[in-house]
């Protein structure tokens, strides 16, 4: 395998609905943005593409990826679709990495979209729920917020996690998004606002959940030779990992923790794992990505994380899977302010617990505030991480409030189902 770099990216504004643009035009906008951002990068230099979108039901079109490929003027170059539920975008990013790492392509375009506004919200929830076992789970009242509610109920039972800790995640991500013009639902929320908003599935309120969106994103990946020729600030992808778990969360085993280098079996002696409270696939993805990137203590070696916060609860669960804190500490990690940006006022008081180094999580606003056009989401994370590592947040967002000073290494995390496919990729500034 050879080194792979991200050399450009682009996104559309994520919104509840973009009826004036179809999926092809949205991807085209993101693609043109990426081309314009890197003079020297032309359509001719792109050897092929991978295209991510989750649901043919939403698109009302099979083989929609082929239509994006021709719309962008990339025929007859190679392309294929990547699909893996909520992790579709993260899987697509890694598919482009594979194309370049293997030597098959010098430059690979990863492009993703979703147009979720084409059905009403409840039909959309039904489509998403069809990504659970349709013999045993979906017919019982299949509803993803319900599944996540059951998982966090168990997390609360095992570890004492509270709804207020979850609400703090919503406050954080919506406040961060106030400085991100691409975000769908920025806002100044309080814990009280989150708790008093309509209940969706106990204990998750509507502000604990991300919204459905229309949007597109692209990331352009290239070999070292091309990256150094075209870009003065390429970002190297130093680690990729992916993990899986059983489709039915009822099937999750209760066994031993998969350990990261900085952890010991002794500290988890009394923990059954993953049960329904943790994501074994996320831990596996992190372990593989850290191994490749040479990371031994993620909380000390990462400068920021963009993770898949489809729910406030899953952000807290994911802190633990990624090893930013120990299993069971996710709620306290949020309470301590560790995942918050240091220079933003959130209207919250933090616990003062100093067990953890500050690692800003979802400085962009994450899925909760940016929106979640499924096939674009994992690539949106890549684009924000890329801009962070280039020090170019100010250029692209129109203000540099969210820019993390001297950010050298970031992590992106994409997550499907109840934890069925999960990807982790590590990106680093290259001097």
């Amino acid at each position, binding site marked *: 395998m050879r080194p792979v770099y991200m050399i450009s990216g682009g996104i559309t504004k994520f919104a509840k609905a973009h009826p004036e643009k179809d999926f092809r035009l949205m991807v085209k906008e993101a693609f043109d943005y990426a081309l314009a951002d890197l003079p020297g990068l032309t359509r001719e230099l792109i050897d092929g593409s991978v295209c991510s979108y989750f649901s043919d039901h939403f698109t009302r079109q099979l083989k929609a990826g082929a239509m994006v490929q021709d719309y962008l003027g990339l025929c007859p170059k190679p392309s294929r679709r990547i699909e893996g539920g909520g992790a579709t975008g993260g899987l697509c990013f890694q598919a482009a990495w594979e194309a370049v790492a293997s030597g098959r392509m010098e430059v690979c375009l990863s492009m993703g979209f979703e147009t979720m506004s084409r059905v009403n919200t409840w039909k959309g*929830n039904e489509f998403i729920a069809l990504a659970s076992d349709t013999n045993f789970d979906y017919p*019982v*009242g*299949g509803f993803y917020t319900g599944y996540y509610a059951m998982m966090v109920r168990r997390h609360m039972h095992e570890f004492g996690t509270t709804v207020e800790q979850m609400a703090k995640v919503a406050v954080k991500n919506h406040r961060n998004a106030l400085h991100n013009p691409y975000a769908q639902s920025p806002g100044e929320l309080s814990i009280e606002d989150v708790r008093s908003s309509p209940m969706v599935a106990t204990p998750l309120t509507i502000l604990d959940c991300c919204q459905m969106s229309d949007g597109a994103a692209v990331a352009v990946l290239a070999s070292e030779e091309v990256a150094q020729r075209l870009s003065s600030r390429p970002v190297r992808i130093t680690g990729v990992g992916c993990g899986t778990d059983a489709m039915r969360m009822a099937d999750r085993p209760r066994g031993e923790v998969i350990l990261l280098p900085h952890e010991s079996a002794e500290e988890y002696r009394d923990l059954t794992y993953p049960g*329904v409270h943790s994501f074994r696939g996320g831990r596996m993805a992190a372990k593989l990505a850290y191994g490749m990137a040479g990371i031994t203590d993620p909380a000390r070696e990462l400068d920021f994380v963009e993770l898949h916060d489809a729910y406030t609860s899953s952000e807290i669960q994911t802190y633990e899977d990624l090893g930013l804190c120990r299993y069971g500490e996710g709620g306290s990690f949020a309470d301590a302010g560790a995942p918050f940006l240091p220079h933003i006022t959130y209207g919250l008081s933090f616990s003062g617990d100093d067990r953890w180094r500050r690692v800003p999580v979802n400085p962009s606003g994450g899925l909760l505030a940016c929106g979640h056009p499924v096939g674009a989401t994992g690539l949106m994370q890549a684009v924000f991480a890329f801009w962070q590592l280039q020090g170019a947040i100010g250029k692209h967002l129109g203000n540099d409030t969210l820019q993390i000073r001297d950010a050298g290494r970031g992590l992106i995390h994409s997550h499907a189902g109840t934890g069925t496919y999960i990807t982790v990729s590590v990106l680093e500034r290259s001097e």
Partner: protein
Amino acid sequence: MGKDAKLPETEEGSVLFNLDPIIVKYHYEIDYLHSYAQDSPFFAGLAKKKLLGSRCTVCGYTYATPRGHCMECGEPTAWVELPLEGKVHTYTTCHFGGEAFLKETPYTLILVEFDGIDTLFLSRIVGAEPDEVRIGMPVRARFLRNCKFRPTDVYFVPL
């Protein structure tokens, strides 16, 4: 050859929501001939008021939600009758849901754990208010009298 050929006009129209851009209603519906295949005995069991799980013939791992082959070792499983009493492992009350279930809200989902069984079973609980359901609460399976061959033919009530 007929240069005056014409398609017949019909009285069907389109439901129009918007003109710029044009947004129309597009209807789509499917009837599948869905086979439960190797999971079929579970659904047949529901008609006999039995809850069938599966046990690995090699490693003994036992699944409350059945599967034909073992997730731990890949070997075939055998059908095994589950106890009809278990405990709530976790729960939620859904106030919204997918379109198909909106009319049933609020409904309470539970994952049921059974003594000696390694995995869980997703079901609904009835006969308990949302604020009465607790982790660890004992529950008993009940079955619809008229089987629909769906997993909702079984549900749970407080013990």
